[in-house]
C-alpha cells in the first residue's frame, strides 16, 4: 500500500460515510412530514416511532463521518470547522435538539409538551439536510479561508514577549467575519442544499410507506402527493446543480508541484477521465429514478426505499469523489487559491492512514450486525397497536 493509495482509500471511505449520511437522512426527511403525513395524534406518533427506531444510525454516521475526516484529513477538520464556525454550530444545534426530541416527547413530566418536540424534529428535518447539503456543495464552489502553517512559529518569532493570545498564530483563518454563513450567499450551495433536503423527504416518504401499517397510510395518495412534489423539486435542484458543476471551472492541482489552478470543465473532465465513476453515477441515478417512479405508480411496491437508497449512496459517493480524485482540490479556497486543500497537502501521515486502514477492515463486520439488527426490528410493519402495547416514543 502506497501513501497515494491510502490517501485515495480514505477519501473513498469519507465520501462513502457522507453518502450513507445523506441516505440515512430519510429520518430528517420523514420528520419534516410529521404534520402533513400524520393528520391525527396517532398518525403522527406512527411517523415519529417509525423514524425513532433509526435516528441513532443517522446520528452515529454523522459522528463517525466527523471522526474519520478528522483522522484522515486533519487540516480539513481544523480549517472547515474552525473557520465555518456558525454554519457548523447551527447544524450541531439542530442535531442536539433531535437527539432528545424522540425520547422526551411523549414521556410523563415532559415540561414542554409533545408538540414542541415534534416541531423540533421538523426543525432538524429542515436545517440538517439543507445545511449539510450546502456544506457539501462548498467542495465544488469553494470557501473563504487562508491556510499558512508557518503562522505558529513566524508570528512568535516576531513577538516572543507577547504574554497574551496572538491571533496571528492561527494556521487556518476565515477570510471574512461571517464564519461560514457566507456559504449561504452562494446560490449554488443553496441549490445543492435544497436537492439534499427534497431527496431526504423522498426517502422519508418511501420509508414510512414501507414500514408503517395503518389504514391512513395504506391510502396511497397520502404518500404519493408529498413524494411527487418532492421528486419534482428534487429533480429541478439536482439537475441544475449537476449541470452547473459539469460546465463550471473546477479547482485542479498540478501533481508535481501541488500548485492549484482553475481548469474549465474540470469536473466533467474528471468524469470522463475516470469513466468507471461515470458508469457508476449513471447506475445510481437510474436506481433513484426507477425507485421513485415505480413507487409512484405501483401501490403495493414497498422496496422503493431500498432502491432509491442504494442509488443515493452510489450517486453521492461518486459526486464527492469527483471533488478530490484525479488531481483535484477537494476543499478549494476562494480567498487564496494556493490555500486550497488537496488529498496530498491535508491528509494524515502514511503511518496513521495505514493504521486506520487496518481498523477500517472492521467495517464489514459492523455493517453485518447492523443489517442483522435492522432486519430484526423492521421485519414486521409498525402498527398503532404495537406502539400502545410496547415500548414506544
Amino acid at each position, binding site marked *: 500500500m502506497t501513501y497515494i493509495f491510502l490517501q485515495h482509500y480514505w477519501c473513498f471511505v469519507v465520501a462513502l460515510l457522507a453518502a450513507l449520511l445523506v441516505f440515512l437522512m430519510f429520518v430528517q426527511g420523514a420528520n419534516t412530514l410529521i404534520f402533513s403525513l400524520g393528520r391525527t395524534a396517532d398518525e403522527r406518533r406512527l411517523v415519529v416511532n417509525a423514524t425513532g427506531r433509526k435516528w*441513532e444510525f443517522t*446520528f452515529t454516521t*454523522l*459522528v*463517525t463521518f*466527523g*471522526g*474519520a475526516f*478528522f*483522522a484522515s484529513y*486533519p487540516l480539513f*477538520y481544523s*480549517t*472547515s470547522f*474552525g*473557520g465555518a*464556525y456558525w454554519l*457548523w*454550530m447551527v447544524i*450541531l*444545534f439542530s*442535531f*442536539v435538539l433531535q*437527539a*432528545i426530541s*424522540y425520547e*422526551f416527547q411523549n414521556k*410523563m*413530566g*415532559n*415540561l*414542554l409538551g409533545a408538540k414542541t418536540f415534534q416541531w423540533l424534529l421538523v426543525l432538524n428535518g429542515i436545517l440538517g439536510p439543507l445545511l449539510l447539503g450546502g456544506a457539501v456543495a462548498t467542495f465544488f464552489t469553494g470557501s473563504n479561508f487562508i491556510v499558512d502553517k*508557518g503562522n*505558529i*512559529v513566524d508570528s*512568535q518569532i516576531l513577538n516572543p514577549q*507577547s*504574554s*497574551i*493570545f496572538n*491571533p496571528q498564530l*492561527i*494556521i*487556518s*483563518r*476565515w477570510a471574512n*467575519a461571517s464564519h461560514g454563513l457566507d456559504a449561504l450567499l452562494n446560490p449554488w450551495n443553496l441549490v445543492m442544499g435544497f436537492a439534499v433536503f427534497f431527496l431526504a423527504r423522498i426517502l422519508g416518504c418511501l420509508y414510512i410507506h414501507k414500514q408503517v401499517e395503518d389504514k391512513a397510510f395504506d391510502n396511497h395518495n397520502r404518500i404519493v402527493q408529498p413524494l411527487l412534489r418532492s421528486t419534482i423539486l428534487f429533480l429541478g435542484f439536482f439537475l441544475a446543480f449537476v449541470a452547473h458543476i459539469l460546465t463550471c471551472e473546477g479547482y485542479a492541482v498540478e501533481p508535481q508541484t501541488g500548485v492549484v489552478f482553475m481548469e474549465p470543465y474540470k469536473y466533467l473532465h474528471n468524469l470522463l477521465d475516470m469513466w468507471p465513476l461515470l458508469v457508476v453515477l449513471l447506475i445510481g441515478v437510474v436506481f433513484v429514478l426507477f425507485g421513485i417512479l415505480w413507487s409512484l405508480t405501483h401501490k403495493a411496491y414497498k422496496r422503493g426505499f431500498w432502491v432509491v437508497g442504494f442509488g443515493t449512496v452510489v450517486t453521492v459517493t461518486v459526486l464527492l469523489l469527483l471533488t478530490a480524485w484525479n488531481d483535484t482540490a477537494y476543499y478549494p479556497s476562494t480567498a487564496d487559491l494556493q490555500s486550497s486543500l488537496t488529498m496530498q497537502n491535508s491528509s494524515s*501521515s502514511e*503511518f*496513521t492512514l495505514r*493504521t486506520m486502514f487496518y*481498523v477500517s477492515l472492521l467495517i464489514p463486520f*459492523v455493517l453485518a450486525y*447492523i443489517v442483522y*439488527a435492522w432486519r*430484526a*426490528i423492521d421485519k*414486521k410493519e409498525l402498527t398503532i397497536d404495537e406502539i400502545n402495547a*410496547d*415500548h414506544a416514543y
Partner: protein
Amino acid sequence: MTHLLNIDMAMVDWARAQFALTAIYHWLFVPLTLGLAVVMGIMETLYYRTGKEFWKQTAQFWQRLFGINFAMGIATGIILEFEFGTNWSNYSYLVGDIFGAPLAVEGIVAFFMESTFVAVMFFGWKKVSKGFHLASTWLTGLGATISAWWILVANSWMQHPVGQAFNPDTMRNEMTSFAEVALSPVAVDKFVHTVLSAWVLGAVFVVGVSSWYLLKKRHQEFACKSLRVGAIFGLISSALIMLSGHHSAYTVAQTQPMKLAAMEALYKGGNDQALTIIAGINPFQQPDYEAEDEAPLKIAVPYALSFLATNDLHGYVPGVRDILDGYTRPDGTRELSLDEKIERGRSAISALAEYRKQKGEGDSELPALQSSLKENMPYFGYGYVTERSQVVPYIPVCFYAFRVMVGGGCLFILLFLIMLWKPKTWSYWLAILCIPVAYIVSEAGWLVAEFGRQPWTIQDMLPTWVSVSQLGSSSVMITFLLFLILFTTLLAVEINIMCKAIKKGPETNNP
C-alpha cells in the same frame, strides 16, 4: 492595543468555558449510562436464567431510566467531538494525526455497536429471542464502555503525549506507534478509574431510587432486590476504585507533577511529605505559592503523600516552587527550571522557523536545525510562555475538587456497607441524598483531571492560547450562552421526566 489583546484572551477563556460547559453537561449523563448498563445487564441475566417475569420487569424499569438518560448523553456528546475543530483549530491540525484516530475508532467500533443494539434492547422484546435480547443489552453497555475507552485514550494522550514525533516538513505531530497511544499506562489508569467511578455512581443511583420505594413502602420486593444488587455492585466497584485511585495518583506524580502539587496545595516539596486532609485555602483566589511554604490551617496525614506519589513513605514530592525553579530527582537527574524550559522552547520555535525558511534552498544547515529541533521539541510549548503564573493551574479548584472526590468515595463505601449490613430508615434518606452528591463527586473528578492540566491542551507541548481557532470572543460567548440555556432547559425536562418515571415505578405485580 491592550484592549484588543484582552478581547482576544477573552476568546481563549470563552472557548475554554464552552468546552468545560459541554464536557460537564456530557459527564452528567455518561456515568449513569455506564453504571446502569451493568445493573440492567445483571437484572436481565437473572431473568434469562430464572425465567421469572419479576426480573424482566425489573430490567425494563432500569432500561426506561437508562433510555431517558442516554438521549441526553448523545445530545451533549456530539458537540464535544466537533468542538475540537470549531473552537480548537490549531490543536486539531497540530495533533489531528494522532488525536483523530481514537475518535474515528470510537465511531466505527463503539458508537455503531451502541446505537444498533440499544434499538434492539428497547424495541426488540417481542421481536427477537431472549438470548439475542440479553446479548443486545450487554452489547449496548459494552459499546458505551468501549466508547469510553477510546475517548479516554484521546484524553490521556493530552495529559501525557506518547507514541508521536514532530515532523517539521508537515509542521505537526505525527503518530509513530498506535500501540503506545492506545495502551499508554495513563490511558489504562484513566479508563479503569473513570469507568469504576461511573459504576459507583450507577450503584448509588440504584440504591437511592430503591431506598425511596422502601421509604414509601411501594414495590418492596423490587426495591429490596435492586438495592442489594446495587450495593454489592457499588461496594465491589468502590474497593477497586481505591486501588485504581492510588495508581492514578502515582502516575500523575510521574507525568504531571504540577497537577499533583496543585491538588495538594504543595508549594514547597521535599521528602516525607504529608497528605493534606483539609486546609484553609481561599476558594476565590490563587494562593501566594511564591511566598508561602504551606497552606494555612493544614490538617495532614504524615508520610501519606510521599507514599501516594512514590510508593515510598519517605519519597520526594516536588511542590509548585520546586517545579518552577527546577529540582533534582531522587535518581540524580535534574528537572529544568521554568526559565530554562522557556529558553529551550524558544530555541525549538526559532529552529523550526529557520528550518522552514531554509528548506528547499538546499542549505547545509538543515541537519543542524533538525537536531536542535529534536533536542528542544519536548519543551516546544514553553516557548509561548512568558510568566511563571501561566503554568500554575488554579490551585483552589484542584485542591477542593480532589477532596470532594476522595471524601465522596469514602462516604459511598460507608453507604454500601450500611445498606448490605443493616439498612434503617435514616440510611434510606442518606441514600437518596447521596444521588446528587454522587454527581458532584463525579464532576469533581473531572475537574481535578482537567483543571490540573491547565494551561496545557497537550502537556508541555501546546498551551491553550496557541490551540484555539481564529474567532471573535463574542461568537464563542453567544454559543456558550446558547448551550447553557439549551442544556439547562433540557436538564430540567430530563430530571422531571426521570422523577415521574421513578414515581410511576416498575410494572411489577407488587405495587
